[in-house]
Structures are given as C-alpha cells and as structure tokens.
C-alpha cells in the first residue's frame, strides 16, 4: 500500500512536469542532468544482477545459488524496465520518443544504449520466463488453491508445458545459451551507459576507467540488492528451508569480494587524478574530498563499501539479519554514489558560471523530482512484489532437482 501511494504521488508529479515542462525540476543549464539520470544509472546497475546470479554463477557450476535465480531475474527485469521509463521522464519532449527510432544516429552513445537496453530486456525476460514454465505446471497442478484469474493467467502463460523430456531438453539448452549470451550484453549495457559520461570532456567524466568502474559497481549493488530481497522474501514467505543461512554466508562472501573490487576501481578513479590535480579536475576533486560534496562522498564510500565489508568479513556478520543490513547499506550508499557521478561534475564546467539566473548555480532536487524518483523506485519494488505474489519466488522445479542431486550425491 505504501508503495502504491508513493507511485501515485510520483505520477501526479510527473503530470505536473509534463504540463509545465522540466522547469518544475531544479535542473538548469549547468546541472542539466540530475537525479533522474543518476536514478537511470542506478537502475541499469541493479539490473546487472540477473546476469551475475543467474548466468555467471550458473556457468561456473555453482549450485547453491539456484534458489536465488528468480529473485535475481525479477529484480533485473523490473530494474531495466524502469531504467527505460525514467529516461523517458527525463526527456524534454517525451512525445518525440519515436524520433530515436525514426531518425536515430548510429554515431550517438544514446542510440547504442537504446539498442543494448532493449536487447538486455528481451534476454532477461526470456531468462525469467523459460525456467518459470515447469513451475507454472506445478502451480496448475494445485489450481484449486488459486483465484480464477490467476489460474487463467497461468494457463495462458504455460499450459503447453507438459513436463515432456523433449521440452526439458530444449529448455535447459536454451537457458544455457541465454546464460552465455547475457554476459556480454550485460557488460555492454553498463559500459555503454558509462560512455554517456566518458565520451564527454568534463572533469570527473573524462576517464578511461569508467566502463570497468561502472560494471564493478553494478555487480556490487546488484549483489547487495539480492541480499536485501533474500532476507525479505525469506522472512515474509517463511522460506527458511530454501534460503538457508548458508546462502547468506555465501552471498555475503560474494558481496565482500565485489565491494573490494569496487573499492579498487574507486581508488584508481580518484587517487590517480588527485595525484596530478589538473586544473580542471582540481575543483571537482577537492569538492568531493573536502568541499561541498564531502559529506555525501564519504557517506557513500563508507556505506557502500567499508561498512558492509566490515560487517560481512566476519562469520557472525554473514548471518541473515546482519547481511540484510549490509545489503541495505550497499544499496543506499550506491544510490548516493551514482548521484555523485552525475551532479558534481556538472557544477564545475570549464567556463565560469556567469550571465545566468542565480538558481542555475546550485542544485537541490525539487519535490517533483524527489516524488518522481522515489515513485520510480517504489514502482520497481511494486513490480517485484506483484511478481512474488503471482509466481513462486524460488524456482520450485530447479530446487527440487538440486536437492535430489545433492541427496543422491550424499548417498
């Protein structure tokens, strides 16, 4: 209910924005990209979790992660959808969205972003849908339990699944192909998104490090969000038997590894330019380390990396509840980190800020921007919750298969 009301407030704010123009936001000529874009980067980052949990872990023959694959995929699909939607919200002329297809220029990084995001959306959807088919047939076996409209939905989606061996063979092979295909696509979505910044000359963005920096950050925030989702679904749906403490232990270790990797890229990203202190970057870096952005910067660094590493480094920290807290810290810290990637650079242009109205020189998002940004996050969560209500959040069939294999193995 909370989520729905947040969404409605966001929608109202968006209607206001459509009518009056983007002037209702606090964005102006200098900070021409604000929290809509940082939200966009955040969403794209989170959506990489699908490829991490489902594809990478599956390909490396890891089996304990099987119960988590569906959580990961739905987060991925929901996030990538809202990434596309928040971009439309940020456009000055959203009714001209079709221009991107009719008049698209191949030379533009935005065109590349449109291509890879739509590709990733389709692939993630397939990776969500195909393993869902056996589970739908299991649900249909118990259809008396469910309301009529849900049964109709299941039938429409998967009544053709007959658990035939031929079907399983095709499905398993397809999922295998998808797992391989999704990795380069996942890498490219976040690399191309990073190129929206790295293809410009601005201090803080003009970096060759951006692709790897963004991807490592994406894996981190994705893994953190899985920790959060794991805990919530486990407690809400009483899934302790399937999402065990061992899962939190292993996921926690992964998050530590990813956080250390992200820390490594952060050091490269900040310490190297700070060593040189080129004139254009000096203002930007001092602003981040010790100036007007220092509180947010150090908050983001600590909550997204240092504190979660500290919590999860110890066995006691990798228990469900502390891991959940670490996950939340990672997600919140990462959101602010994305804000720091977008806005401070724009406040340090090469030319002096002059001959402009006073409100052009500062940026604090207006209530409409907050409403829309929070509304989009709420809507993404809403999609995930709806999905969890309709479909099993743990892949039933695969988990059964897994436990049978392990019990056979232990015999």
């Amino acid at each position: 209910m909370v989520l729905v009301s947040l969404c409605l407030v966001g929608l109202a704010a968006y209607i206001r924005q459509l009518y009056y123009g983007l002037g209702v936001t606090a964005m102006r000529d200098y900070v021409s990209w604000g929290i809509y874009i940082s939200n966009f980067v955040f969403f794209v980052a989170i959506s990489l979790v699908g490829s991490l949990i489902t594809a990478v872990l599956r390909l490396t023959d890891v089996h304990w992660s099987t119960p988590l694959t569906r959580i990961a995929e739905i987060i991925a699909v929901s996030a990538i959808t809202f990434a596309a939607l928040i971009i439309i919200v940020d456009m000055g002329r959203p009714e001209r969205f079709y221009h991107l297809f009719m008049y698209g220029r191949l030379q533009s990084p935005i065109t590349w972003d449109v291509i890879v995001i739509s590709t990733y959306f389709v692939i993630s959807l397939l990776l969500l849908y195909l393993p869902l088919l056996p589970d739908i047939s299991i649900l249909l076996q118990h259809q008396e339990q469910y309301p009529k409209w849900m049964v109709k939905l299941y039938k429409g989606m998967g009544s053709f699944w007959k658990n035939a061996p031929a079907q399983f063979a095709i499905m398993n092979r397809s999922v295998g192909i998808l797992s391989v295909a999704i990795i380069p696509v996942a890498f490219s979505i976040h690399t191309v998104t990073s190129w929206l910044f790295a293809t410009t000359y601005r201090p803080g963005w003009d970096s060759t490090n951006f692709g790897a920096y963004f991807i490592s950050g994406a894996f981190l925030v994705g893994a953190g969000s899985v920790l959060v989702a794991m805990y919530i679904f486990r407690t809400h749906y009483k899934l302790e038997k399937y999402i065990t403490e061992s899962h939190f232990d292993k996921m926690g270790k992964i998050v530590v590894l990813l956080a250390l990797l992200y820390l490594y890229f952060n050091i490269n990203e900040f310490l190297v330019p700070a060593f040189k202190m080129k004139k254009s970057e000096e203002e930007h870096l001092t602003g981040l380390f010790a100036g007007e952005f220092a509180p947010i910067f150090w908050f983001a660094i600590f909550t997204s990396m240092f504190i979660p590493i500290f919590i999860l480094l110890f066995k006691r920290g990798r228990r469900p509840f502390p891991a959940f807290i670490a996950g939340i810290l990672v997600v919140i810290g990462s959101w602010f980190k994305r804000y720091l990637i977008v806005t401070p650079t724009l406040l340090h242009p090469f030319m002096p800020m002059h001959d402009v109205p006073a409100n052009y020189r500062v940026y604090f998002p207006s209530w409409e921007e907050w409403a829309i940004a929070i509304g989009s996050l709420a809507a993404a969560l809403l999609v995930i919750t709806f999905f969890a209500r309709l479909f099993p959040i743990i892949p039933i069939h695969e988990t059964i298969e897994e436990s049978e294999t392990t019990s056979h193995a232990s015999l």
Partner: protein
Amino acid sequence: MSDNQTRRDFLLTGLAIAGTGAACTSKKNIFEETAEAGVKPSGKKVKLLSVDGNIVEVDEAFLKPIPEMPPIPNSEERIGIAGRKFVMVIDLSRCKSLKKCQMACNYAHQLHPGISFLKVYPMQESEHTAPYWQPTNCMHCDEPPCVKVCPVDATFKRQDGIVLIDSDRCVGCRFCMAACPYSSRIFNWEEPGISAATAALPYSCEKSVPQKKGTVGKCDFCPDRARENKLPHCAEACPNGVFFFGDMNEDTVTNGAETFRFSELIRDKSGYRLMEDLGTKPSVYYLPPVNRNFPYIPEADSVHTS
C-alpha cells in the same frame, strides 16, 4: 527575353557614362552574376528605376540587397550555403562588457527572459595573469562533440561550417549540453516567455525562432543574415567593433566598420582559439587583450541584463 534586353541596356548606359578613357574589363552585370551564383529566380519581376531615370526590370531574387528573403525548406537549412566557411574573430582588447551584443541577440531570437545564447565571461587564467571580458557564444566546432552525441540528428553541422539545432526534431535528452565543453547551449526548461505572435511564427532552424519548450538552443551565427550579406546581430550591435565575422574561404572578416584579411589579422594579432587541446577545432578565434581600449572593471555581481 526581357532580361537580356535590360542587361544590354544596362551595359550600354554604363559604357556611355564611363567617358574617362578607362580600359574596360569584362563588365558582368550584377544580376547575371547572382544568377550564375546559383540563386534561383523567384519568378516575380519588378520594375525599378535607375539613377539615370531608366526603367529596369529584374527578377526580385537577384536584387542585392534583397527586399524579402523567401522561406528556405528544412532540407536546405540542413545542408547550408555552398562554398562558404563562416568564421568569427572576437577582439578581446576592445570588449568592455557593455552587453549590447547580448541584448541584440536575445531580442533577435526572442529568448526567454534571463536566458542568453551569448554570454560575456569575466576571465582570469591564473592569479597573476590579466583579467578580461570574454564574449563567448557557440564555437561552431569543426569536430563538434555535441553533434557526435545527438541521437536524433537534431543538431547537425552544415557544409558552411555552421552547427544548427532543429527544435522540431530535438527530444530534449540534453546529451549535447553535457558534451559541450564551452557551455554554449541553453535549454528551454519551461514555455518560453515570448509573445503569442512570435510563438505562432513558422519555425526556422536558421533563425532559431520561435524557441520551443523542452528543446535545446544556442548561437547559430545568424545564417539568415549571412544569406542577405548582413552581419550577425551581435556584430552589428557592438559599438566597439569587438565582433568580426566573415568567410574563411574569402579570407576576410569585418565588423561593419573595418574589414581585414582574416589570415593577416590572426597572424598579426596572434589570434587563438579556446581549449585548442580538446581537439574540437572551433570556428571562433580570439585576439588577445593587449593594448586595451578600456581597463577591466569587474561587475559588482553577475547581474544579468536582458
């Protein structure tokens, strides 16, 4: 054909009066020349009076200056004027930050109050170097970073070097604004505060009028004025002759009162471009602020005049 007849009449009257025994070189009629330059006849002929009292019949499109420019289709606006390469030279030693250029540009393009395409920055490279005023508009770069990143071909570089924006195509993604290192571009965050009459005008990329909500705008080097052989509004308005404008292929720039050979001007006064190391290849050259006409007086506050 009456055109040939009038041309012949013209030449005859010219010959009759040139009685100072001068050697006659090929006297090409100005209208013939214009027709050869590829200007299309409008089909509307006018009967005009010459100084001798003779009647001359001419196609209106061939007149210089032309009374009224016909509207130019968008496809031609995207291609530009053949054979030209527009360049601007700004003499920093003459600038006093009077902002007449800004007022003229804002008026001519009917901009939202408070927004300017042309900004006059107080510059000082470092503590011990001289402060000066720098009028800065779009550089119309030869390797424009803004054009590279536009996803819908709403901003484009023409063959005459001018980079224009098509506000009917722009989707308002603002990538070009992030990409421009010179902060040349403005965005219409709300409905521009212009009169209803202006808002109802048919949109022209070359005039950048009327500005539209949710799209980007910037200095356009006034190509509509160049077609009429007039200077851009800023160059015409400046009382100190700071702005020189011209065609690099002709190797000449003028501020209305003075005309110089571009190559000589840049060489003699050591002209330079902004942020040359970025590789954008701007089309605006600056003459350094030496032997200044006015001392630098900082404004009390960055108050914007409109």
